[in-house]
């Protein structure tokens, strides 16, 4: 396909180089034995992986990041899924307005949301950074929860639920035996997307950070500013490895392009 379309082929190769090559250099420098960030590295070793795994600020912020990602994803699903069901299956006045409200955090820049929550909830109302961080991440994930699970519901026939009710099933039983199985792929996608989005978030976590509420990406950014050694490269390589595992799980279960690209092949 490259030989027959030289111009398009060349541009495409350039695009892949820009997307992928910087990531390869991160991995290459992570195995450096030297103490400055350079390429080619001064010798090979696993030294910086050891340093990264015993560096307390990274470990503590990793725990914070994981807790925050799990909690905000769970809350976003607990609040978002009932809303999705109401929007798609119920008689809800002002349905479109409600749906656009749930999607609205997507259109405001995250940095602006972070600033708003910091100014209004942390400074003015004196709430703790950690709780505001959780509120912010949850608000950020709600659009994904509503949109992704909504797509599963929109594709399914509502008459299935009506049939179950008509045959005498209680609302709860209908939910558990009919609606929930329909929702399952959407729930799974929304949970994966939510977790990854929260874990990787910088703007909200940056503006809402405090000494005991600092996430891993923010700690890494701080570290890069102070010292120029390969420890961040090693940490990045570990994150890359974990992300590849998540991508493979996604591919095996539902299809990667479908979950993360919104592409139906």
């Amino acid at each position: 396909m490259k030989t027959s379309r030289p111009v398009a082929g060349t541009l495409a190769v350039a695009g892949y180089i820009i997307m992928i090559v910087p990531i390869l250099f991160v991995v290459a420098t992570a195995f450096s034995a030297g103490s400055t960030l350079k390429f080619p590295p001064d010798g090979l070793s696993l030294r910086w992986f050891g340093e990264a795994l015993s560096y307390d600020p990274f470990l503590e912020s990793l725990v914070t990041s994981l807790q925050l990602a799990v909690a905000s994803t769970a809350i976003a699903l607990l609040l978002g899924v009932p809303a999705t069901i109401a929007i798609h299956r119920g008689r809800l006045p002002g349905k479109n307005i409600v749906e656009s409200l749930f999607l609205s955090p997507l259109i405001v820049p995250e940095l602006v949301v972070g600033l708003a929550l910091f100014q209004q909830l942390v400074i003015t109302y004196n709430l703790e950074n950690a709780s505001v961080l959780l509120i912010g991440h949850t608000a950020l994930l709600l659009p994904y929860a509503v949109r992704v699970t909504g797509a599963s519901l929109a594709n399914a026939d509502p008459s299935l639920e009506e049939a179950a009710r008509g045959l005498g099933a209680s609302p709860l039983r209908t939910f558990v035996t009919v609606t929930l199985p329909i929702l399952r792929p959407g729930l799974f996608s929304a949970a994966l997307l939510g977790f990854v989005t929260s874990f990787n978030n910088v703007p909200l976590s940056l503006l809402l950070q405090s000494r005991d509420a600092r996430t891993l990406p923010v700690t890494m950014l701080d570290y890069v500013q102070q010292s120029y050694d390969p420890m961040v490269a090693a940490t990045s390589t570990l994150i890359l490895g974990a992300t590849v595992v998540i991508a493979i799980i996604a591919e095996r279960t539902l299809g990667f392009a479908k979950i993360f690209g919104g592409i139906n092949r």
Partner: protein
Amino acid sequence: MRSRTTSLLVLPGLALLVLGFLIPSLAMLFSPPGTETGEIFVRLGEMITDPYELRIIGRTVAIGLVVVVVSITLGFPIAYLLARSQSRWAGVLLALAIFPLLLSNVVRTFGWLVILGSNGVIGQLLTGLGVLEEAPQLLYTELAIVLGLTQLFLPLAIISCYSAVSQVDAGLDDAARGLGASRTRTFWDVVVPLSLPGLVVAATLVFAGSVTAYTTPYLLGGSSQRMLSTQLFSYSSVTIDWAGASATAMIMTFLVFLVSGLSSLAARRGATS
């Protein structure tokens, strides 16, 4: 479901959105802490007449536009080749283009420090080969920011273009070719016009992402190449200037809303014509 049950299902989520997102956002725009009513508008007026601030706004918009052009120039061919390819590798290459979306921006951007830094690949190569005496200053430049943002947003451009191109019937390409059009002419006169809605979506997403991104201008632009995002952080966390931070947030939000508005207008025009 009865309408009261339905409302109960929506209420908890709505409460979080209103209290934890909408009210704080509006309050921040109009009354930052410790400022008098209307002070922020005075500040906004000062900002859009101050040469230093104007340079930051100008740089942000210009970088956003350049990244849009580069991302579409590189992303559309990728989308087009993948959508039209029969090869089994196309699926792998598509996954490779989407994968970076899952990966932390910090990890993705960090690679450019290794490539562009003073001990980086390009510097070492040029001095090693004797082309230059000293490694050129590549990091902390606008070029570095453009490269970093292009890397970040190419996957979004590819996905939008891919959805658009896959909806253009490949039979139309064959028809144009059969009627004697060259490959190039078929591409420009058939494929591109029919994928235009996808291109508009791609451009909007990439622009909005570029003018609001923080990690890239922070790591690759530093304090010498400030953009609105790094300036906003500096106001809110270094100088603690709430009016300045809110005014910067207003300008940033305005840029994003302006472009989204223009793009939905273009989409509506396209649908009716």
